[in-house]
């Protein structure tokens, strides 16, 4: 029951050879494609550290079968800045001290990019609501919210 298939990750087609179709998207990203940004923690869809975009929607890749993602556009942290540098969101997380142990950070970076792409100037309540699927055990969230707000302000200043 092993199969060959391709996944579109970060704009490129990736061959997955001789793999069981029952593997989670998270497992395939990390173990077969070597994309280790998305993290495996709870494996139950609770913590959000495995968050990626599938067709521009934020999902927990631990609860999506890779087979269900065939033919869809998958985006991970590795694909946010094709040059390999840091995005404004990543820089803001560093500057605001929103990163401590770092395990939740890739999921939160994906969630923050997704949020700010849809809602350029979110209120604090909106930030809390939208990031509620991403659990952080270190920071207490205050600096994460600061980082999101910093990016929102900086982006709006660039525009005006």
């Amino acid at each position, binding site marked *: 029951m092993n199969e060959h298939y391709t996944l579109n990750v970060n704009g490129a087609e990736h061959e997955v050879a001789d793999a069981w179709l*029952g593997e989670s998207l998270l497992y395939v990203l990390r173990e077969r494609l070597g994309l280790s940004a998305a993290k495996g923690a709870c*494996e139950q*869809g609770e913590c959000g550290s495995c968050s990626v975009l599938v067709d521009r*929607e934020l999902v927990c890749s631990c609860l999506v*079968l890779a087979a269900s993602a065939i033919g869809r556009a998958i985006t991970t942290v590795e694909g946010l800045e094709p040059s390999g540098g840091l995005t404004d969101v990543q820089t803001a997380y560093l500057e605001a001290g929103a990163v401590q142990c770092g395990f939740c950070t890739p999921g939160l970076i994906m969630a923050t990019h997704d949020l700010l792409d849809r809602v350029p100037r979110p209120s604090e309540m909106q930030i809390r609501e939208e990031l509620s*699927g991403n659990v952080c055990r270190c920071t207490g969230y205050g600096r994460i919210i600061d980082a999101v707000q910093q990016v929102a302000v900086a982006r709006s200043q660039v525009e005006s």
Partner: protein
Amino acid sequence: MIPAAFDYVRAENAEQAISLIGEHGDEAKFLAGGHSLLPLMKLRLAQPTVLIDIGRLTDLSYVRDAGDHIAIGALTRHMDVENSPVLHEHAPLLAHAASHVGDPQVRHRGTIGGSIAHADPASDLPATTLAMGATYVAQGPNGTREIAAADFYEGFLTTALAADEILTEIRVPKMNGAGWSFQKFNRRAQDWAIVGVAAWRSNGDSGVALVNMGSVPILASSVSSALSGGASVADAAEQAAAEADPQPDLNASAEYRVHLAKVLTRRALDAASG
């Protein structure tokens, strides 16, 4: 946390899904959003040997105005229920309850049909559609049939769906301006309900159902009878647990759940009457 091995097949339409499940029998399960089934499989609490992926049946993802009711395709995801303008206009209670399911990641994948077919008494949408007097549509090898929500939930995670039937549509009556409220009591905003109450009220009529107050979602008919008999909201709410059979768990004792059900029912009815 890796599930036991299974075969994966993707269904292209409802008919094919039904014939595949007929072929594979009891060992097979439909996979919709996977947000109830995959966690259980990873814990090995479920071990189907075949998964029939119905997640791409996009023709079963819709919200339509059907005259006296709103028809919702079983594969409609929570996020699309939450944001549906048709539901906001005609059945706002359901759209609002969907916005309380889990967190954004969960609402992007989980489907209304999966939630109802799974029939977890702690889930928000089974009880909400029960309070609204919904009808569910099931399709099997011999055609389709309608099942009233009140007849659907038979026991813990057990429904009136036959093994070879697929849930295709959820029909909720239009609310026609009725007052409504959804009260979800939990300790963190994105958690499951410790107890929840969905209620609506219009002239002499009302519907109240309870989340996590027994092995199935509970229709609190005694509350509605009391209201139609002229009881005050406070008195009617005292009947909230009359049909319930709450179980204790880490979050709450059975007694505390009964207390919560009464308080939340009173709050819901006050809001729905306002």
